[in-house]
């Protein structure tokens, strides 16, 4: 109540715009409207220059749907890393579990054909179960030990899918995974629009849920644990169950993303879920601005588009300056690495930091000689 009031009054101070005040007071409405605008605007942008110079609109919409998968992953990891402050370096494991769950549930290989919409939920539930199984014994560990255990888990899961070839077809992967259908309409490769719109709906629901969670008692407990676990525990927050919930929710988001992804690609194989995926998603969260839902979403979207669309255009781009004969595609990860370093050096708090974090960093800059402020900025991170 008071938070809503102060937010509204803050908006009035900045600008007496009634629409803005309304949206800031009703964030769910703002989220739905925002997602609707974005969903409508992206395909329009894709049909206009300069974007239509790279790809046709259909290819762009397909990339946007794939980008949505990574936005969903980043939103889920943001719960774990950004809100609860647990460093998870093996997030791709839950993505893989969700994807394989769907492949087992609906493919000629397994002989099952469960409906996609139910399998989305089952993928999320199975991934959350594995999150609980991994989290229960390990979440008592201190931050960086947790990081390495999750890193190990992220390596083990694809290795198990690779080696248990009797059940997963090993390195060949499971192909021919069934595509979804809705009310008699079958999703196909040729038409990316249904996937795009489905993803937009899933993302809207996810953003609504995460906002609600963040402002709830649970969300405050997460942030309290992130800032100071000892103090939070002293004030009656149960650290283990609170962390476990964050971990399970993050895992279920990844599981859902995985189920969607395997249905869209109609194919799963272990090498889709390696280390690079975990790192890419973490980079998305950090670059976007940890803890800020919109920042993470935009960061993930931009990074995915840069990595999967724009870097692929390097050869034609340089060729237009008369530079041919060098395969720039070969060096795309060099550029990616340079971009990661440069962006972090320029904006260590991310592109769109959460208000709280910006305030902390700002305080630290104002009082560089004050050890308490410096310690607060240092101690605030997970």
């Amino acid at each position, binding site marked *: 109540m008071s938070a809503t009031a102060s937010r509204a009054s803050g908006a009035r101070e900045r600008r007496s715009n009634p629409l803005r005040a309304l949206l800031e007071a009703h964030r769910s409405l703002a989220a739905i409207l925002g997602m609707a605008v974005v969903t409508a605007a992206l395909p329009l942008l894709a049909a206009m220059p300069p974007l239509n110079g790279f790809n046709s609109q259909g290819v762009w919409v397909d990339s946007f749907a794939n980008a949505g998968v990574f936005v969903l992953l980043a939103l889920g990891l943001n719960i774990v890393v950004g809100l609860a402050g647990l460093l998870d370096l093996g997030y791709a494991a839950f993505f893989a579990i969700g994807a394989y769950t769907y492949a087992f549930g609906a493919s000629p290989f397994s002989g099952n054909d469960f409906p996609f919409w139910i399998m989305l939920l089952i993928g999320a539930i199975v991934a959350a179960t594995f999150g609980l199984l991994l989290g229960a014994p390990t979440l008592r560990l201190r931050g960086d*030990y947790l990081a390495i255990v999750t890193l190990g888990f992220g*390596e083990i899961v694809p290795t198990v899918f690779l080696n248990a070839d009797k059940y997963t077809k090993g390195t060949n992967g499971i192909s021919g995974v069934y595509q979804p259908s809705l009310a008699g309409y079958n999703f196909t490769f040729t038409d990316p629009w249904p996937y795009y719109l489905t993803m937009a709906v899933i993302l809207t629901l996810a953003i609504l849920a995460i906002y609600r969670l963040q402002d709830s008692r649970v969300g405050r407990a997460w942030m309290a644990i992130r800032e100071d676990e000892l103090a939070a525990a002293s004030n009656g927050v149960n650290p283990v169950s609170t962390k476990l919930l964050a971990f399970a929710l993050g895992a279920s988001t990844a599981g859902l993303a995985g189920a969607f992804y395997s249905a869209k690609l109609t194919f799963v194989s272990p090498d889709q879920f390696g280390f690079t995926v975990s790192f890419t998603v973490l980079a998305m969260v950090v670059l976007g601005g940890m803890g800020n839902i919109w920042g993470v979403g935009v960061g993930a979207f931009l990074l995915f588009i840069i990595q999967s669309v724009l870097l692929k255009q390097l050869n034609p781009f340089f060729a237009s300056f008369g530079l041919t004969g060098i395969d720039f595609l070969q060096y795309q990860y060099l550029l990616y*690495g*340079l971009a990661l370093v440069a962006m972090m050096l320029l904006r*260590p708090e991310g592109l769109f930091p959460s208000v709280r974090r910006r305030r902390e960093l700002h305080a630290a800059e104002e009082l560089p000689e004050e050890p308490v402020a410096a310690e607060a900025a240092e101690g605030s991170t997970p």
Partner: protein
Amino acid sequence: MQTQRSIRLPARLDGSQLPFVAAIAGSLVVAYALVGPQQFSNFLTIGAVYALIALGYTMVYGIIELINFAHGDVFMVGSFVALWILSGPLGLHGSIDNPALLAVVLVGLFLVTMLILGALGIFIERFAYRPLRNAPRLAPLITAIGVSFILQNIMQAFFGPSPVNSPQIFTLNARFDVAGASIGYLNVFIVAVAVALMIALQLFVGRTRLGRAMRSTAQDREAAELMGVDINLTIAFTFFIGSALAGAAGIVWVLYFGYAVFNQGFYAGLFAFTAAVLGGIGNTTGAALGGFVIGFLQVAAAQYGYSRWSEVAIFGVLVLVLVFRPTGLLGQQLGERA
């Protein structure tokens, strides 16, 4: 206020350490019995590589609490530098049979490679980590990932994407027989070099002025600064030593396996970091111990025909150790930072 950072040294050897020494000796005997004489020397060699890399991880983590993900790739660069020195300026193709000449080449190879790699470590710290020293903890982690991509791609640009063979300067058939196993002089040399470097590191950290500066910086950076320790110099030097040791591991890799490839640092780094955590991160002895444990698991898994599952075994053991001993094998119990 108790901080988590520290670079810890073991106490001087006295009576209280006897159970520990006995435990290590006992596990070596068990290891020997499990894998047999031939694989035993293999395990010591691979363990030495992991231990040398793990030392760099553990020192950097001890002093600035950064999981330096680029460290595995620094090791990889070390392999390529060694390979290039051998086949480029020295123009070697086969083995060197003259023992005196071989010794000179090896000493020069280690000196030059470790110096170059140490300089690389200082360079990386200066440009990728130092500007972010007071930034949120995850920011330098992301730049570390970026540096890892950059190093891999530069090496790929120079040496190509497929494994590059290096000249075998040790005669492969120079072996001697012990207890029914044929042991190469190369294996003995590698283990000896690794142990010598580890002892040198312990002496350096424990006995010298700069080593004391490193330990005090690890314990409490601000207090150390107030006592007149040059923090930037100390941290840069920590990176120098860690990267030089990774360079040594890179040379050992090239000598033993006879090739280098641009992505070899990934798994080696992952396992070495696991080794550092297994031993108790920040603890140099623990890192060495962890390296040998990981080396043993890998060799034993291969010995029993489960080499495809060695990763699962390694990380499974890690999880088990951390569940029952949450700060690693030799880690100290420290309170949560208030």
